[in-house]
């Protein structure tokens, strides 16, 4: 297998009864790449991602994530990926430190490693003053940056981000993307699912899903050229309207 490719998907399909939610999708993602996985609500994004992170068994096709097979090695996949969603990220009723310790513990890090990591992380994010405050009291932007760092705490090969920057203020958003660039630069693959097209502009490559199929896959620049559009939003509009 190609060592450079951390996600390899071929003909991946998921059916619910007669309904084909994901229709034979094929793509691969390189190490250190920021890959945008786009589509409208209900296009099949979430179903596809669930198969990749090992919580849903595909109906057909093959998929290899972080060197493990989604059919047989789902547990190994889970150990080697990080996950962050806009809906659920951190426990509001635990402090910053408690959250870090908890998630470090989930991934089986030793107490010393957790302590070390948590100090580094808190310093990097400038959270020293609020380290013992409940996460609920933090501004939204800080929470999102913290939860991204927590998703990376066990040095996963791939981190899956579900609509990571929706609703965040523009400056925090940039800081967030800088963190993503940094992680990618250090070799972590970043897989972003979103239906916000402006998030897509930041990705190295994007795929656009329509009705369970991948209808477009390339760099944002080439896609814009191909569809003769100024923004990814326009690309999507053209694609969706057929």
């Amino acid at each position, binding site marked *: 297998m190609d060592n450079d490719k951390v996600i390899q998907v071929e003909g991946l399909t998921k059916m619910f009864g007669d309904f084909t939610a994901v229709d034979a999708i094929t793509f691969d993602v390189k190490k250190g790449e920021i890959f945008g996985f786009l589509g409208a609500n209900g296009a099949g994004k979430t179903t596809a991602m669930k198969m990749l992170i090992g919580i849903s068994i595909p109906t057909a096709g093959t998929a290899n994530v972080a060197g493990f097979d989604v059919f047989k090695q789902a547990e190994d996949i889970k150990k080697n990926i990080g996950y962050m969603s806009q809906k659920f990220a951190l426990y509001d009723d635990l402090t910053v430190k408690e959250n870090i310790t908890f998630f470090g513990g989930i991934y089986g890090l030793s107490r010393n490693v957790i302590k070390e990591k948590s100090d580094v992380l808190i310093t990097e994010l400038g959270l020293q003053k609020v380290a013992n405050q409940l996460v609920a009291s933090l501004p939204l932007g800080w929470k999102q940056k913290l939860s991204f760092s927590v998703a990376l705490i066990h040095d996963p090969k791939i981190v899956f981000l579900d609509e990571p920057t929706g609703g965040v*203020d*523009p400056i925090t958003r*940039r800081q967030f993307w800088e963190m993503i660039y940094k992680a990618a630069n250090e070799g972590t693959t970043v897989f972003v699912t979103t*239906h916000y097209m402006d998030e897509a502009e930041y990705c190295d490559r994007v795929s656009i899903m329509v009705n369970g199929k991948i209808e477009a896959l390339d760099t944002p620049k080439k896609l814009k050229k191909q569809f003769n559009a100024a923004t990814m939003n326009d690309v999507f509009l053209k694609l969706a309207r057929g």
Partner: protein
Amino acid sequence: MSISVSNISKSYDAVKALQDISFEVKSGELFGLIGPDGAGKTSLFRILTTLLLANEGTATVAGFDVVKDYKKIRNSVGYMPGKFSLYQDLTVEENLTFFATTFGTTIQENYDLIQEIYVQIEPFKNRRAGKLSGGMKQKLALCCALIHKPKVLFLDEPTTGVDPVSRKEFWEMLKRLQQKGITILVSTPYMDEAALCDRIALIQDGKILQIDTPQAIVKHYPKQIYNVSATNTYELTNALKAYEYSHSVYPFGEFVHYTDQRSDFNPTELKAYLESKNLSDLVIEKTKVTIEDTFMELAK
């Protein structure tokens, strides 16, 4: 004046949600409240729709005071809260009928106002609202908010979580409603939607950063922005930030938006500097200012 807000402040315990907010919306205007989550948009909407009491300041909607004349306001405004707020277990038609009755009217009476939107969902009128797609729910919610022919329409983040196609259609609908003489106050976290409003207020942390037409707001930006790109965006950002004359550096889609401190900035100089940092495939070109650039400059 359709909406007039003067010196409104609102706090929840220690959190100051709104601080000394003042602005006015003219009759028939499409006014946008642009800001991220937690900026105070929803609190402001709730004060104007008489759902919350402000700690300080006064406001009028359609000429009525939001505290004293709250009943009159409730009769004359339409409101679409941020969350999809219809009865999921009622069909499309039942929802609409219910809201019509609640406002003491009937679907027939104001059909001309909603017709254009309603025809799109009419084929599904016997379907439960909970089973509709995101875009259709939103159209139904708009119909329900319009059914009593309100003078002022409040739309709190109507396009959040909605796919680009439905978003576009939704803004087209708003433009047409505006032509029918309805004043619209709409909030959104998407900076790209700002350009579609007549006037906008940029809001962050409970404070208004600026109020003007989108064109004027962009024009007031003090500097020339350059699009910069290289093979490695991460290294590029770091190098630009380290550059001694840099004023602002923000990743912006496939580019990085860069402004320089000097008025006689020369891109070739920057290019030479970046090349010395081992960056390749360099592009440096002038670009247009966006609302988002202005927002960041003001919020800095």
